[in-house]
C-alpha cells in the first residue's frame, strides 16, 4: 500500500470524511472491522482536538492527514499549524476520579492512547504540530 494523503478544512463537518478516508485505508492495509473502528475513532479524536483547541474553530485553517504504511505498522500523521496547545493538559490520569467529577472534555486524548499502540506529539512552535498515531497489524 502506498502513502495516502487527505487535506481538510478545519470544520467538524469534515470529520465524517476523515473517518471514511482512514477506515478505507485501514481496511486495505488488512485490519479487521473492530480495529478499523478503533483507528477511525482515534483519528477523529485527534482532528476534533485540533479543530476545537488548536484552531479554535477557525475554518480558514487546514489539517493534513497522511497515512504511511510500513510493514506491520499503520502510521497516521496528523498535521496542523495552529497555536501550540499541550495535549497532556487535556489528559486525565485517573478516570475514576474524573468520572466522579462529571467533567466534560479531555476524554479524547485518553481514548486515543487506549485505542492506538503508540501516540506521539511533535510540536514545532510557530511552524506546525504533528500527532503520530500507530497501530500494528498482528
Amino acid at each position, binding site marked *: 500500500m502506498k502513502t495516502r494523503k487527505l487535506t481538510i478544512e478545519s470544520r*467538524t*463537518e469534515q470529520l465524517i470524511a476523515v*473517518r471514511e478516508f482512514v477506515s478505507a485505508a485501514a481496511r486495505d492495509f488488512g485490519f479487521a472491522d473492530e480495529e478499523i473502528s478503533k483507528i477511525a*475513532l482515534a483519528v477523529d*479524536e485527534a482532528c476534533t482536538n485540533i479543530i476545537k483547541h488548536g484552531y479554535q474553530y477557525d475554518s480558514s485553517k487546514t489539517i493534513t492527514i497522511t497515512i504511511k504504511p510500513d510493514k506491520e505498522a499503520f502510521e497516521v500523521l496528523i498535521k496542523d499549524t495552529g497555536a501550540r496547545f499541550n495535549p497532556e493538559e487535556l489528559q486525565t490520569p485517573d478516570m475514576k476520579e474524573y*468520572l466522579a467529577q462529571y*467533567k466534560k472534555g479531555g476524554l*479524547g486524548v485518553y481514548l486515543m492512547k487506549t485505542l492506538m499502540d503508540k501516540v506521539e506529539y511533535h510540536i514545532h512552535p510557530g511552524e506546525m504540530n504533528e500527532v503520530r498515531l500507530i497501530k500494528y497489524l498482528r
Partner: protein
Amino acid sequence: MSDFKVLQRENGGVSVLELKGYLDAHTAPKLEDAIQGLIAAQRYSIVVNCKDLSYISSAGLGVFMAFIEDVRNHQGDIKLSNMTPKVYNVFDLLGFPLLYDITKDERDAVKKFVEKKK
C-alpha cells in the same frame, strides 16, 4: 445534516430520545439541544435509546457528562439502552458503565423509572 437524528417520544411517563446515525463533535450539539429541552421542561426521567446509533466519539460522551449531574440533582436519571457492541465498547473503554445505568432494552430502563416512583 442527515448523518445524525434525535427522535423524541414518550414511553410510560418517561422521555425517550432515539439516536440515529453518527454522534461526533459536529452532531453533538443536536443531542445537547434535545436534553436541554427536556431539562427546561422539567422532564428528568430520560432514556436514550441507542439502537440505531452507529458511532460515538468523546464529543458525544461529553454531552451525557454535561447533564447527568443536573438531572440526578432533580431525582431523575439519564439511562442508556439498546447499544450495539461497537458503541458499548467506547463507553466501556472510558469506564462509563460504572457511572451510567446501561440496559439491554428500553423497556428495562423505563421499568426502573416506574418502579422507583412507586
